[in-house]
């Protein structure tokens, strides 16, 4: 299998700014791999280094066993779909798509045949003689895709390719892109800041922050089992609580203020100050006064009807604000979802997760010693 990428200690500095900080990543062959993170996290710089537009300050980019870090972009067997497509405005669709075939030694007849074939794949037959300016955003996006795919790269790099499209078209193209990737079976490296896009399309997601990889795993894993508070926070709404942990391996006793909770998820061996999280959809609201473990009283501060669900903000004893999602399943809710209603909030032990702190830059490892959590084994 071709198209396997291994990044080893890949670093990029721009003057004094470290854009990508010694990341190690494995992108398996024929997978849909997503680099996810907020703007400025280094995901685009990482992609541009794989493409060859930026020269790494240090580190290796191993493509199918060969380090290509110092190979110029026109000699790399990877192709890019740019955020703004970068279609050549002076060339028509067919000429845009055929642009790179010249360098692969195909004769005119073969080139025409390949252009026809790929335009059919992206459903743009009949658009050969249009100029890019005469196409809609979605069509331009497809030309950009065709122009890169026609060269049968080992890896296709996509830099927020859906960013410029409206929500509806975006959804359509998400499905389409995923289907194309599945059909032709080459590695896709996809950059996005949209967590939903990352979760729906990817086989594997690397969540980046501040030039480093916080977690690289399957979409389900990064969502359900976020390792750090950054990942938990970035992937959807999470409730984060400051707690003191007394981990014993199977479960972790958490003290939040003067209340005790049991957490069964995450870094359950950790001791010391940690962050604990719970997803809004995992919080259960019970009638005021209900007893039991992992429960605490609170007062509804805001309740918003969203159609399929209610979004409820609860101020709990101790002052924290928790967000809960209550499904609108037709059954009468256990509590009146109104501002000012008293409720009992249940944080189920199997939904409460103990998080590791974000990875620290090497410079600050010296003071990591007095942070017990950072020595916790990873899951």
């Amino acid at each position, binding site marked *: 299998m071709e198209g396997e990428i291994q990044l080893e200690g890949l670093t990029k500095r721009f003057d004094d700014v470290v854009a990508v900080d010694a990341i190690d990543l494995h992108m398996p062959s024929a997978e849909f791999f997503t680099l996810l993170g907020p703007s400025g996290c280094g995901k685009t710089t990482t992609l541009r280094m794989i493409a060859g537009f930026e020269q790494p300050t240090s580190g290796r980019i191993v493509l199918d066993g060969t380090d290509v870090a110092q190979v110029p972009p026109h000699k790399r067997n990877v192709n890019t779909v740019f955020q703004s497509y970068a279609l050549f405005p002076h060339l028509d669709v067919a000429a845009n798509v055929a642009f*790179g075939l010249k360098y*692969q030694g195909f004769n005119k007849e073969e080139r025409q045949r390949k252009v026809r074939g790929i335009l059919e794949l992206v459903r743009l037959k009949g658009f050969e003689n249009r100029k890019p300016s005469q196409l809609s955003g979605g069509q331009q996006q497809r030309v950009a895709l065709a122009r890169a795919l026609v060269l049968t790269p080992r890896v296709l790099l996509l830099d927020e390719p859906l960013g410029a499209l409206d929500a509806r078209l975006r959804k359509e193209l998400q499905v389409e892109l995923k289907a194309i990737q599945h059909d032709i079976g080459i590695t896709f490296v996809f950059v996005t800041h949209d967590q939903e896009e990352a979760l729906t399309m990817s086989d594997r997601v690397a969540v980046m922050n501040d030039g480093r990889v916080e977690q690289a795993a399957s979409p389900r894993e990064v969502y359900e089992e976020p390792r750090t508070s950054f990942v938990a926070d970035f992937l959807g709404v999470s409730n984060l609580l400051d707690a003191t942990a007394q981990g014993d391996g199977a479960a972790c006793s958490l003290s939040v203020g003067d209340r005790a909770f049991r957490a069964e998820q995450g870094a359950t061996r950790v001791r010391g100050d940690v962050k604990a999280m719970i997803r809004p959809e995992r919080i259960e609201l019970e009638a005021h006064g209900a007893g039991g473990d992992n429960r605490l009283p609170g007062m509804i501060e805001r309740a918003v009807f969203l159609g399929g669900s209610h979004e409820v903000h609860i101020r709990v004893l101790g002052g924290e604000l928790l967000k809960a999602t209550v499904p609108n399943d037709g059954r009468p809710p256990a509590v009146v979802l109104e501002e000012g209603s008293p409720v009992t909030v249940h944080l189920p032990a199997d939904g409460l997760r103990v998080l590791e702190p974000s990875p620290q830059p090497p410079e600050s490892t010296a003071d990591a010693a007095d942070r017990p959590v950072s020595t916790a084994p990873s899951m």
Partner: protein
Amino acid sequence: MSWLRNPWGKPRGLLVVTALYILWSIVPVAIAILFAFNDGRSRTTWQGFSFRWFTGSSGSVVHDPALQGALKHTLLLAVICVGVAVPLGVALALGLQRWRGRGGGTINTVMLLPLVTPEIVMGVALLLLFLRVFPGIGLGTEAQAIGQITFTLSYVVVIVRGRLVSIGREYEEAAADLGAPPHDQLMRVVLPLLAPAIVASAAVAFALSIDDFVVTQYLSGDASTTTVSMLLYSSARGAPTPALNAIATVALLITLATLALAFVVYRRFAGGREATAVAALEV
């Protein structure tokens, strides 16, 4: 002013001032052009319409060797100026855009200096240069061409760089990504995208060369290196005939046609806003 009190009203006062200004700037030129078609020898008294100063049998643009020579020399200088300044300016603009190290800002400022240097200063400086430092070149056509290239180059660089900045590096990266080596990136992508700016800068260089008086005058050698602008200056106080107006009209038409062509080409390929900017630069 009514528009000061009423912001929704039409600014009539401003319209009147604008109209007066346009009239003031156009009327003298229009009169000068009009007298190019005068049937008599006077440049002030109208004696009927004719083409005699353009095509007549004596003293006209077509038959006066001095006028002919000046026109030919003007066009020769313009062609040399465009032929050298445009390729050189494009190369400089490309180089400056890729310059990532220190000194980029300084080079930029130096490139822009000729735009703000008083032309008389430049003329005197170049005169000294050719008399003292490079006496081998001497005064004449070569010196005039080099002088014109020196200051038109800045305009070319400014126009081409503006376009380069608005194009960005993405198309080049896309070409590289698709396998094009640097030479092909330039020939297949960058230069075609720069074409409107190149045409526009060529037109500007052409117009600047034709219009130039100070530098060209300082660096001229003998009568054979007289241009239209120099001729107009020297004979305006001698025994002028409407033939002078005629040749000025020809020069004006050439300039206007060139600029119009540049404007149209640029607008066609690069959008209206930049075209206006170029038009403003030219004036």
